[in-house]
């Protein structure tokens, strides 16, 4: 559903004016986007510096602390709020006593890394397929559209589980998950790129380029790709947080990242039975996931409005359309 929405919104984005100046100016003008950008930057920093931060705390994400949980009552962390204290800033995991802070900061690496890689892959595939469909003949277009339909209707979980079973366990899981998300999530971008390509193709400057003697590839590179950048970027920044959610969902369902690699979704999945006995275990990754996705979404919105300033000026009656008539 998010996809349809994004397609709806990003698809209508017009080609922006050239030059990057106004974009940054418009982005800077949005305070919420700036705050979100700061949060995202912080999260990226945390992810990059995860071992360092855990080191400062004096913990690591894998060491078991059997002494910190109450074994007789099912392994609840000893101490209030899940064992939060000077040694364990966010407490420890039930059953194992692993340090939660170290796990969430390492989990940030996985969540952000997987989502980023998946997004890049989606952009790559989506632009490729979309361009091919938009530029190709009727047959190519139809064939690719059907392929897209199939991909849309295929549950990601089935693919993930199939792939997890087929690919040897020695293959790094995060990479595999990123590839899977990338492979099934490109349809939105490809639809936008196709639509934009079709609309651009009919523009006179493309016809002019053809008359100038350029070949198809050069026309795509010179006339189409630059114009596609804005909608693709817009869509990609909104895809990024949704990919984080997909990764978390897969891990939550048990078909994503595997232990002992910490990921937020997997932590949530482990924590979901603990909502009564150790609520902090659940709340911490939930909160982080929420903040991350929210920040990225707000930032994405900011980027979108900065790339599509028309959104704000749409409501003026009597000017917009009249200009064309008067011309």
């Amino acid at each position, binding site marked *: 559903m998010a996809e349809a929405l994004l397609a709806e919104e990003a698809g209508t984005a017009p080609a922006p004016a050239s*030059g990057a100046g106004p974009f940054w100016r418009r982005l800077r003008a949005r305070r919420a986007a700036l705050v979100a950008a700061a949060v995202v930057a912080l999260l990226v920093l945390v992810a990059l510096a995860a071992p360092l931060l855990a080191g400062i705390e004096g913990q690591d994400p894998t060491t078991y602390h059997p002494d910190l949980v109450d074994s007789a009552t099912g392994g609840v962390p000893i101490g209030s709020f899940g064992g939060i204290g000077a040694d364990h800033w966010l407490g420890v995991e039930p059953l194992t006593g692993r340090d939660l802070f170290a796990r969430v900061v390492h989990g940030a690496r996985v969540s952000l890394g997987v989502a980023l890689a998946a997004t890049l892959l989606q952009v790559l595939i989506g632009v490729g397929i979309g361009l091919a469909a938009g530029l190709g003949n009727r047959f190519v277009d139809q064939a690719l559209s059907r392929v897209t339909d199939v991909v849309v209707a295929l549950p990601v979980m089935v693919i993930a589980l199939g792939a997890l079973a087929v690919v040897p366990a020695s293959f790094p899981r995060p990479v595999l998950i990123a590839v899977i998300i990338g492979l099934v999530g490109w349809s939105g971008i490809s639809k936008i790129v196709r639509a934009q390509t079709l609309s651009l193709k009919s523009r006179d400057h493309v016809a002019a380029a053809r008359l100038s003697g350029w070949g198809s590839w050069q026309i795509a590179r010179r006339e189409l790709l630059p114009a596609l950048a804005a909608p693709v970027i817009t869509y990609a920044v909104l895809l990024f947080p949704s990919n984080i959610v997909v990764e978390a969902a897969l891990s939550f369902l048990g078909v994503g990242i595997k232990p002992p690699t910490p990921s937020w979704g997997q932590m949530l999945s482990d924590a979901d039975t603990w909502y009564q006995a150790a609520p902090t275990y659940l709340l911490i990754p939930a909160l982080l996931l929420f903040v991350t996705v929210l920040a990225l979404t707000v930032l994405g919105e900011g980027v979108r409005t900065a790339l599509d300033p028309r959104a704000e000026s749409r409501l003026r009656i009597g000017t917009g359309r009249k200009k064309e008539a008067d011309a």
Partner: protein
Amino acid sequence: MSLVEVSDLSISFGDVRAVDGLSFSLEAGGALGVVGESGSGKSASAYALLGLHRGTGAKVGGSIQVAGVDVTAADDAELRALRGAKAAMVFQDPLSSLDPYYAVGDQIAEVYRVHHRGSRRAARARAVEVLDRVGIPDAVRRSRSRPHEFSGGMRQRALIAMALACEPQLLIADEPTTALDVTVQAQILDLLHDLRRETGMGLLLVTHDVGVAAESVDEVLVMQSGRAVERGPVGEVLVAPREPYTRALLAAVPRVTEQRISSGAKPAGDGEVLVEADGVRQVFGRGKSAQAAVDGVSLTVRRGETLGIVGESGSGKTTLGRMLVGLLEPTSGRLTRDARVQMVFQDPVSSLNPRRSIGESVADPLRASGERDEAVIRTRVRDLLTRVGLAPESYDRYPHEFSGGQRQRVGIARALAAEPELIVCDEAVSALDVTTQAQVTALLAELQRELGLALVFIAHDLAVVRQVSDRVAVMRRGRIVEEGGVDEVYGNPRDPYTKQLLAAVPALDPALATVRRAARKELAAA
């Protein structure tokens, strides 16, 4: 008291002052034409009469009295009572101006019921009545149709019917015919004329087309950059303008009666054949929905001549043009092209890539032909820019920094860069204001003279075509209905369609307009 009394009106959108210190008045039953080029503020002024700027963020100053209502001071209820009942408006684009979801009759009835207490049935009856009045055949049945089932002209009639529904004292028509073909335009203007005579309502006609104004109004107000330039009876202003701007404007308007500007080109018939089409067809779609946009056209273009192709929308002229340059392959028929061909496009916005500097765009044909030396390219592009009347420094600037006319010049420079022998101009000046239009056509003529170019000039505007062409072909529904020397076709049309077209062109001289209106009626009756 006057029907409309505007004094010192000013309208600003943000920092932009669209209208500045405008004053005018219109007596009951009078007809005022507001004429101006794009950005003159004429439409914004018309909107202000109904208080339509309210709530949009536009700042409106000065005072406006319409049918006794002080528009700037009126509260929302008073304003609503004015709108539609005392003063009604007809908009430019009849399709988007009607609600696509409801039957036309229901929409008119709704408007009627806003201002008149009465039954639904009575309102429907009134709707049928006004639809019948504006010349919708079988009005009872057609009132149940939705807008998309109407043709463009019928929709505009329906909009006018809606305006008539409450018998307003004032009709404001904002570019009512701009989106229509010339023959339909003539019918709508005639309808407005008749209605005004019949009902005695006042008319405020906003238009960019001086000819339209000449046909329809008693008085003219010429606007430029938000200010009134000249005002007076239509006969005076259009025949003997006082202000230099008005004079320039009128001078730039191409006239269908006027002989071609001499380009000094060789007479048609002896140059070598550059392009020859023989029975070319272009079919779009397949199966049942297949439609021949061009249906068996044969023509030749010779070196140095200008072939004008005129036709209304849907006549296939643009498709033909694209086939001539090779952007489209004919579905059938033979097309031989023995020359380098280029094209100048209609839309100055979409014909240049907004992300590339204009120099780069102009350099495209050079690079595509294998030129690698940057210095050579730059020099050549600067020469070309100079040649089309742009500063050579413009090389690194981007399209949005240029006006429409300048962009068309860039387009011409790009076409020239490929050293063509034939340039197809597809509605190359249609999107431009008349003054700019005149400059661009002059440039084309000049280039043709100097470079010995052949031109194919495609346009819907008969006057422009006459101005530039040696020969002219009239297209209708994918076929050429008449072809010949320009003076011959314009002076002595043989095909009835050509006659109809020519009769529909508005005349600049109000006196002549009256004569021609009579002629049109005769033609329609015949």
